[in-house]
């Protein structure tokens, strides 16, 4: 074993595959009198697909909002790549490599597919305002370079035919795909997917599952997925955390969770 740690790795907080990348400890979040999350702890390991499941109103989306900094929990600590915080900020989360999609598609409706995905490159673009305004030299070549990266994503997601279309007009399934593309354009280390297959038919779900698995395998992206379709969850995920009424009731492999009595009760409805 090497005695001294690579200084560069510590500075950037690089995490080896299989090690804990993000952990939430004892996080509680409430809105007025409503307790959305109560003392939940779990971790996410680099390179895995981690599912968060639970009945409606269990606090799944709130948990994603805590992780990417939209919500600031009243209690608890979030550790991401070795840095502990009581709350993230959306800008910090994005700049440190956390990307996400939304339960109700949140695209820039007036813009084209291409422009939507280009916004995902915002943090990767370095050139200043002035050289962009003048649109020549380094700024122009930078724009072209990012455009190439975006075209790769468009090809990968098989949405080349809607490249120029305003996304507001697209069918729901395609909007979900564009939203995934925008998140991928950020080249994230951690990708949060909030019900990426809601409202899709079987074929669309299969396509989306394929994209998610390919992203994990090719880019080694760590993925957190909220999903209601149990078949999808069991097929895709490495580990599952189950929430109910804001509390964690189970955590383990899909097989473990499936046979857990508390989980079965939560889904079938047992008096609390």
């Amino acid at each position, binding site marked *: 074993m090497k005695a001294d740690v690579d200084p560069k790795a510590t500075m950037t907080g690089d995490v080896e595959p299989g090690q804990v990348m993000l952990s939430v400890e004892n996080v509680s979040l409430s809105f007025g009198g409503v307790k959305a999350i109560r003392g939940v702890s779990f971790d996410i390991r680099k390179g895995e697909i981690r599912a968060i499941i639970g009945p409606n109103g269990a606090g799944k989306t709130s948990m994603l909002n805590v992780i*990417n900094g*939209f919500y600031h929990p009243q209690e608890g600590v979030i550790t991401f790549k070795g840095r502990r915080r009581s709350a993230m900020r*959306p*800008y910090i989360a*994005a*700049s440190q490599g956390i*990307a*996400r999609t*939304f339960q109700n598609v*949140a*695209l*820039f*409706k*007036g*813009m084209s597919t291409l*422009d939507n995905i*280009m*916004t*995902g490159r*915002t*943090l990767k*673009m370095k*050139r200043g*305002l002035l050289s*962009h*305004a003048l*649109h020549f030299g380094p700024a122009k070549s930078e*724009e072209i370079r990012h455009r190439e990266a975006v075209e790769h994503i468009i090809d990968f997601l098989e949405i080349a035919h809607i490249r120029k279309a*305003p996304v*507001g*007009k697209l069918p*729901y399934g395609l909007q979900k795909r564009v939203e995934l593309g*925008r*998140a991928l*354009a*950020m080249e994230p280390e951690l990708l949060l997917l909030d019900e990426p297959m809601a409202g899709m038919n079987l074929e669309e779900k299969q396509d989306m599952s394929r994209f998610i698995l390919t992203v994990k395998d090719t880019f080694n992206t760590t993925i957190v997925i909220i999903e209601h379709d149990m078949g999808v969850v069991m097929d895709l995920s490495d580990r599952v955390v189950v929430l109910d009424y804001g509390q964690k009731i189970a955590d383990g492999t899909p097989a473990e969770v499936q046979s857990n009595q508390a989980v079965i009760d939560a889904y079938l409805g047992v008096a609390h």
Partner: protein
Amino acid sequence: MVAFGQFAEVLIGGLLAGVLYSLVALGFVLIFKASGVFNFAQGAMVLLAGLALVRPLDYMVAQGFPVWAAIVLGLAFAAVVMAASAWLIERFVLGPLVNQDGLTLFMSTIGATFIIEGGAQMIFGSDVYPLRLFPTDAWFLFENQFPGGILVNKLDVWGGLIAGILVAGLAVFFQKTKTGRALRAVADDHAAAQSVGIPISWIWFVVWLVAGLVALVAATVWGTKLGVQFSITFLALKALPVLIIGGFTSVPGAIVGGLIVGAGEKVAEVYLGPLIGGGIEYWFAYVLALIVLLGRPQGLFGERIIERI
């Protein structure tokens, strides 16, 4: 030939006056595009910019500065004032309201209007201050063809030139730059924009700064025309029909809308006025806007809003 000469004069005068409306409408469009907010304070910002320009300028001239230096320093001072107010608005008015409804943001700009109007007059004074940045005399064109020639106001021509440059610059800024794309993203969805790492507070500062500088440009032209005074804030009301006709989200729409309103009201005043008793200029723009609302609610150049149900 006399009739045609008169028509040409009315039309050209109207079109050029319309460009001046466009200058004010542009400030609204910028903020609406970038934050989805109808900025009620735009008229107040023209007043603030005008006062922050004319007062130091007069003072410096009285102190014996050369006029050109006073103008340059005055413009620089006013630009700094607009930047400071953009920062304050972002920090204290809009910043705390991220992710709130558009109507909430609109209400907050009404509040900002009164603070800006009151503050500007408290600091810089509330008289009518004449501003002479541009020539205000007229050219007489085609005197050989038409008796008396066609009267064209030099100030209006300057206004047209400036508006043209401004629009070209803004179009490039919005369509071609990374910041422009970020601005459009923030306008569509705050949360999604934050999730891709667009710093909303910086974007809003940029938007209000640009709108403030457009207000300053409008103030130089309108201040020369009317003098810098409180009634300049009513320009906001004239910009409203321009926006409805052109579309709230379109920079070219603000220009075309301004031209239609300017030309329409002058032509109507001259040719329709005698028939129904005059005074048409004051309400004609609003009637035009109503007609557009009936036929094309998003305006001539506006983005059609598509809601999937």
